[in-house]
């Protein structure tokens, strides 16, 4: 038998050595021993070598999971021979050690892509960026090798594995960590470039151009990663919700908010050469928050529905990386930052100012989430009192701040760089205002207006949606369909990104508001034969069934969903699954997704005697939540792909 686990371990170790060399390489040209041109050549080589080695290592781990080599401790603990192949593979990152290796894979992947694509950048800047990227890789490689090696062998090989937590045996959760990590780790390059810029002490408008694609791609991946996680929680946890303000969810939201601020502020650097030092600070903070996210999930410091097993020593290690990665750059920033600030020639009403307001709001929102997430921990350490900060806190503090941001999201796009408003600003604002009124009228007609907050939410939805559409109409002129393509082609990718990003936000809001205000639910204990009304549909409880899955048995309720007149719309089969290998039970909600809203049924406890407990929901527009997130990510992607490298200080759009 090939000792692939040992090969994987060795590859990881050599990768650590490569990264360490690479991290210290720019010392030589800095001392005048060699030129940056030769330094960058070696840096690139080392980076590509490290990337290759880590990929070999990760393949070895995946291979171990595929062939179910139970002599490997990790495979024995988190896999089982009866598991479907997909979940054997995803099991490789469904645990602490493996997910850390996945993190490193993506880290070196980004480093590798930078090494290959940075040939047009100045060699000193690329050397420094690669050096910082390598020191991050080296820290995490050391973390993996010395505290949580995925390749440990057991002295006694068990007959079978203990299996993966059944809640994690799911397509959404197989894809969620890689996507989220692409986002977290993508921010590492923005971070490395920011620190490299600080070390050089010189930030140009081009720097904004270099950093923007990395910030954008990380933001897209983070958006999709969070959406996947939320979608998973929605259909898998069976609680009917899609966001719980759980510490682990907040951990991914904070870097997202910071990255959102970053993609807006890099635009100001790129187009106007302003906000440089602020953008550097944001890049550092965004990546630090990614590390905080990893720290929260990995350390088990905060209890959460999502966290894996915890081990304090690992938490301490990540905390050290976090302190170094945040502390050193911030010190450097305190020293060099002030010299980077530039005099602004922009007026008060300008896109420059609007984007500063955007950044203030997003940073406020990030801080509010940060405080809500860590306050319980701080309080418990100080007073010993255990508390929970739940959704009501976030609704009372986060939502109002975001609401101000949403008002601005329709105004900022009709401002001009440097000074003033675009010619169609007044018309666009009128349309947005009309949209807000129309939305309130529709809300009132639908009977979902309960209080001031619901009026505000609905008005904002109309304001933003119509505001963006009005801006699009002004430039694309939808009523002249024949020449629309010509006009569309003239529009910059950044503008498409703006439109789709903001429109995606409006669509997301439609889902969130539809579900938040229009949701109907019914919890009932029922016997086969009963008919239950929810919204204007009825559920006919037909019978209970027992089924056999690949590695579980089920208890399934067969429900017939009917419209008011008793016409069958479809069958719903909510079930509870029992996984004998893991000795665990999961709830599988039955969902009938429609654009107009989901029907959602959950089977809970019960038996033939006392009846079965059923939770039945109708959730209007709920799918639009994830649809909106996808549109936002597409917007980011278009801004990334259709970039036009034009830089003029006085560009007006």
């Amino acid at each position: 038998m090939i000792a692939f686990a040992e090969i994987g371990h060795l590859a990881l170790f050599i990768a650590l050595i490569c990264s360490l060399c690479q991290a210290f390489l720019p010392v030589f040209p800095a001392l005048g021993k060699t030129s940056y041109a030769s330094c960058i050549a070696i840096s690139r080589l080392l980076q590509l070598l490290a990337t290759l080695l880590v990929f070999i290592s990760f393949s070895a781990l995946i291979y171990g999971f595929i062939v179910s080599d139970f002599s490997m401790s990790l495979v024995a603990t988190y896999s089982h021979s009866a598991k479907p192949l997909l979940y054997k593979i995803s099991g490789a990152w469904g645990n602490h050690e493996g997910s850390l290796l996945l993190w490193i894979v993506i880290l070196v992947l980004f480093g590798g892509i930078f090494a290959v694509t940075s040939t047009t950048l100045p060699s000193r800047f690329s050397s420094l960026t690669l050096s910082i990227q390598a020191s991050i890789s080296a820290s995490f490689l050391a973390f993996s090798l010395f505290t949580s090696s995925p390749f440990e062998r057991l002295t006694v090989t068990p007959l079978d594995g203990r299996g993966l937590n059944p809640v994690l045996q799911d397509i959404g959760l197989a894809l969620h960590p890689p996507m989220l990590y692409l986002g977290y780790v993508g921010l590492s390059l923005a971070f490395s470039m920011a620190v490299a810029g600080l070390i050089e002490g010189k930030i140009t408008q081009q720097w904004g151009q270099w950093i923007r694609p990395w910030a954008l791609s990380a933001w897209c991946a983070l958006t999709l990663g969070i959406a996947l996680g939320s979608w998973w929680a929605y259909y898998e946890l069976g609680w009917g919700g899609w966001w719980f303000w759980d510490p682990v969810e907040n951990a991914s939201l904070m870097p997202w908010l910071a990255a959102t601020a970053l993609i807006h502020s890099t635009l100001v650097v790129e187009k106007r050469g302003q906000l440089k030092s602020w953008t550097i600070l944001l890049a550092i903070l965004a990546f630090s928050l990614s590390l905080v996210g990893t720290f929260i999930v990995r350390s088990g410091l905060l209890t959460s529905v999502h966290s894996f097993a915890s081990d304090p020593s690992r938490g301490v290690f990540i905390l050290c990386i976090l302190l170094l990665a945040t502390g050193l750059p911030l010190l450097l920033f305190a020293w060099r930052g002030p010299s980077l600030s530039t005099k602004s020639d922009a007026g008060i009403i300008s896109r420059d100012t609007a984007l500063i307001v955007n950044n203030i709001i997003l940073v406020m929102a990030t801080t509010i989430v940060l405080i809500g997430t860590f306050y319980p921990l701080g309080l418990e350490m100080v007073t010993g009192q255990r508390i929970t900060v739940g959704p009501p806190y976030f609704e009372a503090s986060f939502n109002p701040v975001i609401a101000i941001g949403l008002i601005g999201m329709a105004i900022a796009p009709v401002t001009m760089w440097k000074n003033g408003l675009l010619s169609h600003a007044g018309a666009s604002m009128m349309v947005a205002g009309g949209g807000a009124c129309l939305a309130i009228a529709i809300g009132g007609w639908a009977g979902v207006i309960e209080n001031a907050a619901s009026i505000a939410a609905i008005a904002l939805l109309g304001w933003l949606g119509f505001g963006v559409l009005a801006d699009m109409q002004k430039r694309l002129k939808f009523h002249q369909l024949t020449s629309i393509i010509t006009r569309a082609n003239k529009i910059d990718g950044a503008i498409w990104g703006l439109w789709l990003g903001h429109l995606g936000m409006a669509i997301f809001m439609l889902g969130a508001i539809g579900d938040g205000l229009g949701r109907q639910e019914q919890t009932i204990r029922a016997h086969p034969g009963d008919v239950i009304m929810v919204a204007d549909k009825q559920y006919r409880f037909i019978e209970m069934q027992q089924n056999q899955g690949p590695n579980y048995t089920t208890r399934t309720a067969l429900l017939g969903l009917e419209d008011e007149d008793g016409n069958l719309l479809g069958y719903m089969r909510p079930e509870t699954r029992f996984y004998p290998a893991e000795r665990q039970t999961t709830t599988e909600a039955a969902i009938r997704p429609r654009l107009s809203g989901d029907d959602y049924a959950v089977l809970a406890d019960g038996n033939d005697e006392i009846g079965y407990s059923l939770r039945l929901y109708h959730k209007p527009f709920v799918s639009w939540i994830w649809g909106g997130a996808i549109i936002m990510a597409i917007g980011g992607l278009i801004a990334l792909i259709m970039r036009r490298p034009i830089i003029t200080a006085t560009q007006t759009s």
Partner: protein
Amino acid sequence: MMNISTSPRQRRLVIIGLSGAALCLAVWLVTSALRDNIVLFFTPSELTAEHMGAKRLRIGGLVETGSIIISGTNAHFVITDETDTINVSYEGALPDLFRDGQGVITEGRFESDIFIADTVLAKHDENYMPREIADSLKKQGVWQGDKTQ
């Protein structure tokens, strides 16, 4: 259209003013939201009469064996930390692993002596023990289980 010329100094003042206002707003929102919305956690023996008047509470412990009475969608059960007990009444569907001896966290408020819960949390994992309960049971030496998965 609008073309208000301003000096960089004026603009800087406006931005500093906006940031200051934002900071004040954030501080006010956070402090008022924290004041009104935090939920304290207790085990039955930690609970005092004063706490029982709170708007919302979380109470955690083990489900006392044989205490579960289910009628329709209402469940009545007793939470214990092996020192004291609390009577809980819950309206709704129970989690998969809700059973005798299981560690649970409930959230709700007191109506006289009965805790009216609107949320009952029990994890999917049979071996799982909420951290708060594990801590307090360990303190009393009742339960020594290890939480590692």
